[in-house]
């Protein structure tokens, strides 16, 4: 697992060079934006069920046959597995967002996920749909543009300052989608 800092270290070691002034510019920016990153991660942690459970329920509402006998979310044991997986994917996205690097998501969550779902007969397009809803909900919460009461509370300022980090979070969800598709 790497973060933005150790990613730079591993890159420099491959060249056998020290990390000097030129390499430090982007890391200094990363440090300067630390509060925004921490706020965004916290916004996810504070709304786990709002993001994950709602996304899975939303996906099921769009495909009501899923909870009927013969559907992929019938009986409740399988629905529970689906809810659990939504939360696990969201958790690894939150780690990647905190680290500023996708390696933790790749290594510990996505590696082999599609093969597992194929083997278990999980319908991929429905899993992708749930991830898409999680992505939309996460971006809305981080940028404080969700409907209903404001969900964002941060040390860095306003949700409108978090467009960049929301785009980064969205890119991790896209990574999940492309690895499943």
């Amino acid at each position, binding site marked *: 697992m790497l973060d933005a800092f*150790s990613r730079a270290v591993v890159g420099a*070691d491959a060249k056998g060079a*020290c990390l000097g002034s030129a390499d430090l510019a982007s890391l*200094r920016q990363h440090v300067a934006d*630390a509060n925004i990153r*921490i706020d965004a991660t*916290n916004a996810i942690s504070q709304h786990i069920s709002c993001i994950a459970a709602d996304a899975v329920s939303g996906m099921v509402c769009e495909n009501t046959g899923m909870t009927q006998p013969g559907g992929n979310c019938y009986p409740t044991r399988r629905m529970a597995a689906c809810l659990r997986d939504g939360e696990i994917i969201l958790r690894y996205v939150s*780690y990647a967002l905190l680290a500023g690097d996708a390696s933790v998501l790749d290594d510990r969550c996505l590696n082999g996920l599609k093969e597992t779902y194929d083997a278990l007969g999980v319908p991929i397009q429905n899993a992708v749909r749930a991830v898409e809803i999680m992505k939309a909900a996460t971006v809305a919460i981080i940028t404080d543009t969700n409907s209903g009461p404001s969900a964002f509370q941060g040390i860095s300022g306003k949700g409108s300052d978090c467009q960049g980090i929301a785009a980064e979070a969205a890119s991790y969800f896209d990574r999940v989608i492309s690895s499943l598709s």
Partner: protein
Amino acid sequence: MKSAVTTVITAADAAGRFPDISDLKAVKESFDRAAARMEAAEKLAAGIDNVTADALKAVYSDGKYDLATRDKCARDINHYLRLINYCLIAGSTGPLDEWGIAGVREVFRTLGIPTSAYIEAFSYIRERVCVPRDMDQQAANEFKDLLNYLINALS
């Protein structure tokens, strides 16, 4: 690669929890110290050749060690300083542990290399760091902490 942030994430993942308030606090603390660490890393990267040359001169000045080993010693000192540069960036001793310390005792013992030469070199560098000529106080503290860590590992 162990760093300040990945250590926190590894612990959270082992417990299966989302990053909670105390995790985020730990990350925030490491970010707060990052400016000083980066200053130290930057100054070290700029002066690594001079620092190595000075330390080498000090180690070989009293004729205790065979001059034939001089170039290899310079290479190793440079290597360790580079790893310290990485540790300053990562905010953790991960790069030193994984690339510089794991297995080093066995290698030195097998090849009959006296670790005392390295200890003298790094002690010399530690004493020579001058505030504020080389870097500011906080940066120097971060740098010296890592030198001490390395000296202890080699002792």
